[in-house]
């Protein structure tokens, strides 16, 4: 599929569609790569935080706290 840009001229009301320029296509590809890298970083951070939470809960349970008591501490 050819990527197109839509331009709305507010003075005339004219709506035009055009193909992206080579520079715009390159920018889109760069944005996609940057987003993918950023998302991977965020997903890793979320996974690490979740693992730390589960580990902490397990240690609290090992100390004898009930699930209700752990929830009271962590909420």
């Amino acid at each position, binding site marked *: 599929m050819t990527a197109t840009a839509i331009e709305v001229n507010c003075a005339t009301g004219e709506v035009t569609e055009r193909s992206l320029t080579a520079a715009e296509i390159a920018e889109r590809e760069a944005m996609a790569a940057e*987003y*993918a890298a950023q998302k991977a970083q965020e997903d890793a951070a979320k996974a690490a935080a979740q693992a730390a939470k589960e580990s902490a809960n397990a240690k609290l349970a090992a100390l004898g706290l009930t699930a209700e008591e752990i929830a009271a501490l962590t909420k």
Partner: protein
Amino acid sequence: MPNTYQVISSVTVGSGGAANIEFTSIPQTYTDLVLKISGRFTVDSASAFLRYNGTTTNGSSRWIEGSGSSASSSTDGSNQYGPVHGIVNSTKTASTFGNAEIYIPNYTSSNNKSSSSDGVTENNGTSTTMALGANLWSNTAAITSIQIVPAAGGNFVQYSTAVLYGIKNS
């Protein structure tokens, strides 16, 4: 709705989708602008950037986001203004669209341009995302064009819409 709230222009994306949507030659006769978007992307991202006057510099943004089960906040480091959140991404409920609104006060002034944005998405009745952002474009030029660009490089799907309103203070 007050009679000072007027549609300047609107557009609905056609069957081929759109890599971006741009409003140009924005009249300088209003006090504020409101941009409303009903959209869905072809990629796994619910964010878009706003670009004023074709530039990509001097922008900053801070937003908070809640999913119903967790909350977070973040600062955008892209140097573009927005980002706009709340446009449904490709992983959400099929054939649904998200809502986003950007309020841009005093867009013709010679001060820096601030804006607020809010947006919501839905996913199969099981989760949602709500975001509220504060944005700044550190530029004193009057805003004459606004381009909406998917942040992850995808397309707006068919039937996505964008409507630009003008508001007069009298």
